[in-house]
């Protein structure tokens, strides 16, 4: 059986390493990455190889078939997310390895949390089962909350508390939706639901609860209030992981639900409504990002804005033609991946800039372009992708979404993409403007260790490169979805 070992390794290995890192002395905790990263990279690649050889398939845990046992789904979408997670998390882990050296010992608890987070995310990407998704969400969510609290400053604790409350409320709404679906259809398997679910009041209410719960976890405007303090205030590698990956997990579950219950059950109104909320996020997040004085808060609000683009998916696939739907699918996934890479790079390079000038204030970046060009260069590359300028993943995504919007005749989304791009340019270049201003003539800034700059640069370059070779990942991502080529 293909992927026999690699599929369970994707969550079992991080779980084991998470526990092991509790057992070893603090100094040894970071070093476990040198066991974990190669193995997880290998497992991810093996899963990709499995997908390439036999196509989309399910992995039956305990060898029990679907409604009785829990199945894992290995299709293009899941494997794409796994690879994205492996790339981003590995680089963030390398970054953290160096970054946390100067932090108090208590931050070494970052490592067990990281492994649990990773296991939770991989669990979610692979899940085929709606209750299993709930447990996966909890593993990931609590690990993420723990990471936010790690700094243990009053601000961090308040942010973690706020995040935890939002996450708990979201999970409960989701769980109640699951309870209704199980009560009505007697199955938890997505494939099973796809067969039996009908368009009735119970499904509608259950879906509404699930959507609301997941929106809260994804921090879609106007449910975003918890995000900026949590993402902006955490340790830099934590911010990168949360913004790049964690919020994507709940969006991914929404996508899965959409694939299963489909546009037949999602009414036109809901789809347009989600799109409007997305537009609101783009405008409000962009505007707020532009107003920030604190570099990481700016980046965090940029996440609020970028989440909005993902939700244009729903109006663009509901009651539109197959071509427009395919483009919307491609565009949204490209946006998701490009944002993950670019946002991780942006947070890491912002962290480097903050290390260099010793202050999180944007106004203290005056003249830094002269002294720390590399950190700024990564910031710039990532910014290019976020602004949706070519050549970058963000641009390719925007291109596809524009294409889909025009094709489906929903021209109003063009305005969102247009103004959203300009707004993001405004806040990205706000940082650049400051860094180009002539300031002190003497280099007083700290030089961040090379590893920190290199990891940020790799992520930023990946955000650019993925735009140039987009047809390859997009081809894989379609496998096993309704847009897949058989």
């Amino acid at each position: 059986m293909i992927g026999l070992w690699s599929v369970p390794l994707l969550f079992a290995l991080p779980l084991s390493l998470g526990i092991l890192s509790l057992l070893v002395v603090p100094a040894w905790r970071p070093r476990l990455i040198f066991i974990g990263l190669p193995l997880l990279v290998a497992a991810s690649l093996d899963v990709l190889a499995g997908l390439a050889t036999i196509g989309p398939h399910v992995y039956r845990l305990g060898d029990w078939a679907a409604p009785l046992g829990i199945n894992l789904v290995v299709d293009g979408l899941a494997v794409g997310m796994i690879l994205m997670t492996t790339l981003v998390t590995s680089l963030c882990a390398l970054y953290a390895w160096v970054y946390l050296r100067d932090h108090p010992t208590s931050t070494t608890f970052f490592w067990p949390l990281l492994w649990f987070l990773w296991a939770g995310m991989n669990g979610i990407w692979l899940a085929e089962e709606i209750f299993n998704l709930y447990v996966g969400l909890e593993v990931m969510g609590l690990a993420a909350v723990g990471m936010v609290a790690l700094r243990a400053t009053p601000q961090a604790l308040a942010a973690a508390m706020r995040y935890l409350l939002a996450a708990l409320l979201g999970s409960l709404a989701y769980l109640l939706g699951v309870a209704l679906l199980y009560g009505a259809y007697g199955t938890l398997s997505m494939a099973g639901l796809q067969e039996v679910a009908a368009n009735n009041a119970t499904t509608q209410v259950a879906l509404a609860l699930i959507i609301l719960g997941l929106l809260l976890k994804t921090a879609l405007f106007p449910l975003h209030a918890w995000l900026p303090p949590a993402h902006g205030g955490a340790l830099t590698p934590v911010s990168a992981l949360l913004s790049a990956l964690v919020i994507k997990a709940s969006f991914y579950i929404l996508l899965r639900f959409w694939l299963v219950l489909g546009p037949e059950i999602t009414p036109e109104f809901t789809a347009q409504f989600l799109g409007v909320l997305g537009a609101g996020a783009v405008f409000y997040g962009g505007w707020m990002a532009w107003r920030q004085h604190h570099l990481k808060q700016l980046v965090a609000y940029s996440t609020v804005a970028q989440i909005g683009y993902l939700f244009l998916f729903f109006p663009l696939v509901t009651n539109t033609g197959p071509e427009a739907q395919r483009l919307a699918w491609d565009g949204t996934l490209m946006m998701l991946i490009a944002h993950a890479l670019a946002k991780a790079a942006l947070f890491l390079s912002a962290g480097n800039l903050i290390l260099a000038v010793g202050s999180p204030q944007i106004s203290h970046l005056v003249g830094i372009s002269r002294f720390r060009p590399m950190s700024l260069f990564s910031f710039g590359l990532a910014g290019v992708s976020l602004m949706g300028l070519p050549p970058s993943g963000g641009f390719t995504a925007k291109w596809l979404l524009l294409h889909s919007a025009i094709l489906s005749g929903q021209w109003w989304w063009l305005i969102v993409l247009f103004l959203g791009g300009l707004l993001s340019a405004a806040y990205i270049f706000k940082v650049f403007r400051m860094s180009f201003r002539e300031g002190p003539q003497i280099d007083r800034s700290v030089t961040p260790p090379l590893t920190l700059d290199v990891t940020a640069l790799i992520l930023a370059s990946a955000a650019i490169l993925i735009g140039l070779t987009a047809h390859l990942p997009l081809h894989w991502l379609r496998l096993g979805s309704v847009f897949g080529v058989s």
Partner: protein
Amino acid sequence: MILRAILAGLLSLGVIVALGWAVLERPAPVENLPERVASAMPESGVEHPITAVLLNFRSYDTLLEIAVLLLAVVVALALREAQPDRPEQMGLDNPLLRSVMAWLLPLILVVAGFLLWAGSYQPGGAFQAGSVLAAAGVLLRLAGAHLGWLDNAALLRAGLALGLLTFIGIGMVVMLPGVPFLTYPEAHAGTLILAIELTLTLSIGLTLLSLFRLNPPYADDPDDARTQGGPKP
């Protein structure tokens, strides 16, 4: 404040109405999962269906659930390390309580053991047994009793880790014949599940105990555990 209450009231009223509508309009399920469970019971290695679901059919959920429990402990440890608590002498140190405990404790352990063992054919199991263990620990603390081995951070953490590691380990070992993760061979399913439950009980007990604020003190560095404080014997 009033506005907030009104808003909350309206929102929850709306949710109740929507839920009620959903419950009323609910279709009759097509899929009959209980039947599937019943027919798969003979292969599960246990006789109690809930244990079969928890530790065989849906054991993956249980695995992740243990991870959730551990996560709470990890965060507690991290925050304790960042802002150390002052050691507190919480024991009542009451001779009467002590003598009662001397009788109660073995009883509690017996109950825990029974719950664990009973889980394979009647209500009970690792979670229930584990929580009883935790209760025993809490009582001991309240009585001011001092369990030396619980103050040993390394040992305690090993205990925390034991359950999940065994679970994953067994899940992996059974794969050797070329079957998926967590596929227990039918002949040994009962034994393997019991082994998992046994270690889980211990770990769950310790985990729940650790969540309690009166838990044994531990510092980040196992060697430092003794000096980090805690009720002195």
